[in-house]
C-alpha cells in the first residue's frame, strides 16, 4: 500500500490540477483516505495538509473513515423522494440496525444516501456496489441483502 501511494504521488506531482484525481485513485487503492495518507499526499505535492483535507472533505466522494465491504446507496433524488425513498432508507436502517452513514459491526455493509443516481424512471432506486436495484419495496430488502451476504461468505 505504501509504495502504491508513493507511485500515485509520483504520477500526479507534476500534473496541474492533479490533487482531485490523485485522491480518487488513492481512495480506490486504499479504500478510504486515512490521515497518514493525506499527510503523505500533502508533503508529496508540496501543499499544506489543510488544503488537502479541505479538498477531501469538500467532495462527497471522499471518505476519511473505513467503509464496509458492500456499499448501499439509497437514492434521495426528487423522483425517489416522492415515491417513498425515506421509507426505503428507514427500512434499511432497521434491517441493518445502523443509521445512515454508518457501517455494520461485521464491516459487511455501509449505508449511505446519494443525491441522485439518474435512474429516476425506476424510482425508488438504490445501488449496492455497482448494481442498481429499481422499483424497490421495503419488503424485498431482506432478500436483497441476503444475496450480498452470501456473496461475501463464498
Amino acid at each position, binding site marked *: 500500500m505504501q509504495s502504491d501511494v508513493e507511485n500515485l504521488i509520483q504520477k500526479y506531482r507534476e500534473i*496541474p*490540477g*492533479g*490533487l*482531485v*484525481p490523485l*485522491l*480518487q485513485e488513492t481512495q480506490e487503492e486504499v479504500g478510504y483516505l486515512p490521515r497518514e495518507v493525506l499527510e503523505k499526499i500533502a508533503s508529496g505535492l508540496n501543499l499544506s495538509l489543510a488544503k488537502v483535507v*479541505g*479538498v477531501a472533505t*469538500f*467532495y*462527497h*466522494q*471522499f471518505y476519511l473513515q473505513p467503509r464496509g465491504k458492500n456499499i448501499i446507496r439509497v437514492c*434521495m*433524488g*426528487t*423522483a*425517489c*423522494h*416522492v*415515491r417513498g425513498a425515506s421509507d426505503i432508507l428507514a427500512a434499511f436502517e432497521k434491517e441493518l440496525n445502523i443509521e445512515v452513514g454508518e457501517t455494520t459491526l461485521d464491516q459487511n455493509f455501509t449505508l449511505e444516501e*446519494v*443525491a*441522485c*443516481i*439518474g*435512474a*429516476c*424512471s*425506476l*424510482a425508488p*432506486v438504490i445501488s449496492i456496489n*455497482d*448494481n*442498481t*436495484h*429499481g422499483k424497490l419495496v421495503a419488503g424485498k430488502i431482506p432478500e436483497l441483502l441476503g444475496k450480498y451476504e452470501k456473496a461475501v461468505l463464498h
Partner: protein
Amino acid sequence: MKKEILVCQGSACVSSQSRDVYDALESELKVRGLEEKYSLKPTGCHGFCEQGPIVLIEPEGYFYCQVKDKQVPKLVDCLQEGSVYEELLYKSSETQEPLKTRNEIPFYQKQKRLVLQNCGLIDPESIDDYINSGGYSSLQKVLSMEPDEVIKEVKDSGVRGRGGGGFPTGDKWYYGRQPQADKKYIICNAEESDPGAFIDRSILECDPHRVLEGMLTAGYAIGACEGFVYIRSEYPLAVKRIYSAISQALEKGYLGKNIMNSGFDFDVQIKQGAGAFVCGEETALIESIQGNSGMPRPRPPYPAEKGLWDRPTIVNNVETLSNIPIIFDKGASQYARIGTQQSKGTKIFALTGKIRHTGLVEVPMGITLREIIFEIGGGIKDDKKFKAVQIGGPSGGCLSEGYLDFPVDYDSLIDAGAMMGSGGLVVLDESTCIVELARYFLSFTRMEACGKCTPCREGNTRLLEILQRIIEGEGKMEDLDRLETLSRNIIDTSLCGLGQSAPNPVLTTLQNFRGEYEKHVKERKCPAGVCQALLSYKIIQENCKGCGICMKHCPAGAITGEKNQPHNIDADVCAKCGECVDKCPFGAIVPG
C-alpha cells in the same frame, strides 16, 4: 436485409436485467446456429425506461417491452417464423390493443427526436454505427468554413444553453473567439447533479460521438485545441462510453492532429467529478479541474475571457453540444423553424414522479405542459389527481394546474417563476405535501452549497429552519411573509446560480399553494397527510368491524374498544406511526 435485434443497454434497462436478456439472446442464437443470419446489437436508451428491458427488431420495428431472459427462446421462435411475439408488445392503456412499433405508442407520438435520433438505434460503442447514420459529416462541413462563419451559423440557429440559464450559444462562442491567447479550452459540462434529471447521462451513454462532434465544432470556432469532459463519477456507464468514443475517434482521425486533413488539431481529456452539485456552475467546475474545492468565483471576468488556467474557456452543457451537429446538418434557418420565437429547437425532459410513463422525452420548444404530462406521459399514476409539476430541479419552480397550458420555453417558464434548468420534470399528485417538498429541495441545496457567500450559507439555513417549524406545527403566519422577504434577499445577493435559485421552490410553492401553507400554520393540518407531526388518525365508525387487529398492533396503546364494536383512537396517546392504517383489513382508519 439482415434482421437486427437491438437490446437496450442504458442504465435503466440494465437495472431491469437487460444484460441477462442480451446474454440469453446471444447463446440462443449460437445454439440454433443463427449468428450469421441475425445481428445482435447493444444500444443506448429509448427513453421509455419504465417499460424496460426493451428489445427492438429491425427492419420491422417491433418494439418489445419488459422482456425477460426466460422469454428469449420464444422470441427467437417468432423471429424465425417471421411472426410477432404479441405478449411482449406495449398495450394501449385505453383500448388494451397491442401496438407493434414505436411510432404507434402515444409516448412517442408527440415527441420530436432530433438530439435523441440515434438513441436506441445505434451501438454507442461503435464509431462506424455513428458514421453510417450520418455522424461526423457536419464536422466535415464545419472544417471547410471559416470560424466566424461557424459562429454566425450557430447564432442564426438561435440555440440557447440547455444547462440552465439559456444563454445564446452563438454569443458565448463569439466572446470566446475574440481574445488572443496562447491556449483556449472547451469544457463539456456533464456534471448533471440535479436530482430528477438524467438527460446528459443518457446522451453520453447512447450517442457519445455526437457530444464529441459538438465539442470539436466549438473548438474550431473559438480557436481551441484542447477540450475537457467534466463528468460525474456517479455515471460509470457514461464514463466508460465517452472513454471508448474518444479512443475510437483518435484511431479514425476525428481527434488528434490534422483532423480530416484540415490542419485543425483537437484533443479531449476526461475529468471525473468527485461529487459536488455546485460544480455544475461553470466557475466552480473550472476550480475543480484545477484541483481545488469547487467554489464559484464572481463573474466577470467570464470564463470566455479568463477561465481554466486563466485562459479563454467556453463551458457548454452536453445537450447544447449535442444540438450543434443538427444545426450544421439541417442549416441554421431550417433548425430555427423548430420551437418558438425566442427558444429554438427541442428540449429533452426527464419525466418522473407520479406519472404513468416515466422516461426521457424530447419535444419541440413551445409544447404545453399538459401535452407532455397527459399525452406523452399518459397522465397521473393510479388515476390520482394532478397537483403540481416541479420543473428545473431544485433551482426550478413548482407550478400548479393553472400553468398546464403554458408553453414550455425559456422565457415563459421564467415568467411563471420556474426555469428550464437541466430539464427535470417531476410530476406530483395529491399525496405530495407541497411544504414538505419545498423543505426537501431546500435541504438539498443547503447541503450542496459551498459555504463561500453569506446570503446562501446563512439565508438558506434560516429558510430551512422556518419550513421545518411549519412542518412540525410550530409555524406562525408571519413566517410566510418572512419566507418571501428572505427568499428575495437571497436571490438578489448570492454569489452564484446555486444561491440565486435555491429559494425558487419556496417562492413558487408559496405563490401557487399558499392555502396549503396556511392550513399547516392556522389549522395545524397537512392536507396531503405527509407531515407526521400534524397527522391525526380516526376510525370511520361505519367501516370498523371491531376485529381488534389495530389494537393489537398499536405500539402506543392508543386504540380502545369492545370486540365487534367500532373502536376509537385517543389522539393524545397516538404516536402517529401509521401501523394501524397498514394493518386494518377494512380500510377503516384514515388520516384526518
